[in-house]
């Protein structure tokens, strides 16, 4: 087993709203190992994204702690890349401009960051689209740019918040396949949030099944199926059946 990369220790999060306090996360303890692909799987609106935001530092935890690489997380930082639900690309920048954004902010020289960005653009299969603007790309291509952008900053950890949730079914399968290809070539610690069980089993090294709000880890499954996985493999279907029966039903 690789070393521990992300450690959530008794994390809870309460939002103060005008209608009183809302507990979104209740005592989550979770460990993600280096280069592991962990899927957070749970019903809609169960607080998965909030948990992810606590790990990326966009939200602060109410109690408990998140440590990454031994460092306590209290604000966002370049060691953690995020791929968002809907495309969060900068519409005024080209594909190249978006992908090289992180290194540019850190002050890397133009030739160096161009080379790096080009590598990741090629990796996600967007060679030839460097000068296109996001609105000229399909939804799937936009999310590829999002993945390349997160990768290009060379973070230790990648967080993906339902990145394929708004794609049509065919594109979604394709993106899952490609994500695994990219990840196997460039191994990173990935935390992937989804509410789609097939996607979870297809991608994960390990699945953490979350409960409804306030969310906590209900149970965990290590997925030892070889890759590439087959959606109709008997073991795949058995896991699907088993995990389906465990997860809370959302409204």
């Amino acid at each position, binding site marked *: 087993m690789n070393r521990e990369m992300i450690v959530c220790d008794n994390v809870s999060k309460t939002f103060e709203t005008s209608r009183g306090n809302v507990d979104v996360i209740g005592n989550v303890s979770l460990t993600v190992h280096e280069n592991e692909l962990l899927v957070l799987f749970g019903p809609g609106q169960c607080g998965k994204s909030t948990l992810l935001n606590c790990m990326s530092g*966009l939200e602060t935890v109410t109690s408990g702690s998140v440590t990454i690489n031994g460092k306590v997380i209290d604000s966002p930082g370049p060691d953690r890349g995020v791929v968002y639900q809907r495309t*969060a690309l900068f519409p*005024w*920048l*080209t594909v190249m401009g978006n992908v090289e954004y992180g290194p540019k*902010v*850190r002050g890397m020289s133009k030739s160096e960051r161009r080379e790096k960005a080009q590598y990741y653009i090629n990796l996600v299969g967007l060679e030839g689209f460097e000068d296109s*603007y996001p*609105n000229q790309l399909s939804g799937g291509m936009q999310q590829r740019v999002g993945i390349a952008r997160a990768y290009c900053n060379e973070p230790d950890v990648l967080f993906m918040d339902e990145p394929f949730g708004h794609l049509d079914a065919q594109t979604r399968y394709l993106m899952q396949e490609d994500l695994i290809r990219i990840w196997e070539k460039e191994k990173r610690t990935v935390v992937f949030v989804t509410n789609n069980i097939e996607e979870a089993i297809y991608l994960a090294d390990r699945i953490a099944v979350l409960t409804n709000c306030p969310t906590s880890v209900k149970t965990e499954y290590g997925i030892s199926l070889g890759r590439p996985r087959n959606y109709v493999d008997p073991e795949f279907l058995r896991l699907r059946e088993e995990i389906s029966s465990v997860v809370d039903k959302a409204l």
Partner: protein
Amino acid sequence: MAATKKKSYIWLSVLSIAVFIFVWYIACDVLKLTDASTLPGPKTVVRTFITKLSSTAPDGATLFEHIGSSLEIAMSGWAMGVIIGTPLGIAMAWYKKIDLYARPLFDLIRPVPGLAWIPLMILLFGIGLTSKIVTVFLSAFVPCVLNSYTGIRQTRDVHLWVGQTFGASDFQMLMKIAVPTSLPLVMTGVRVALGASWTCIVAAEMLASTKGLGYMIQQARGIYRPDIIICGMITIGVIGALFSWLLTLVERVVIKGVKR
């Protein structure tokens, strides 16, 4: 398919102006429904226009000199409005303290029409260039502040999160995320300001001036020369439309990645 469609639209636009001039011509020059000393036809106006290009009668300057004078004031006032107003709007939207400090004063200035400043400006600076430039500046300044402020406020949270996760500083996020987001509205502000400047200068010249298109029109009214008035109005309209078109071109260069 799309190209042929576009072509027919351009044709329609040309037609609208042609029909207008034609009706005007029939009514005034052919049927003579109006007296030439109250509403002349296009023939008279064109003749006056050509004469006025080189003649200084009856108001002491040629048409070009009037245009030059109006443009000079409108442009300087407008440029000042853009240069001061846009950064102020951006700063107010991004920095809470600047907003708190500048907003009360701005809210008081905003509802005062540009022209309402003229009497005070004349008392302060006389009827020369300065009083009018300041008046134009105030008319251009307000839309620049308002639009850049709104533009910055449209910055999406998720874009700021991206900046944060990449470790961008507050100033980097302002310059590289919020300002690009605001550009379309900043450009709208610049365009509205230009329209306001042009309107304002002509009106200001009618009240107090010795030259300029507004002055020319005002003088022509005094001596019953509706042909000169109409000449002036058409010139004002054409120049205004030209500006608007030029700024559209600039917008196309400046604003990237937007569906048109």
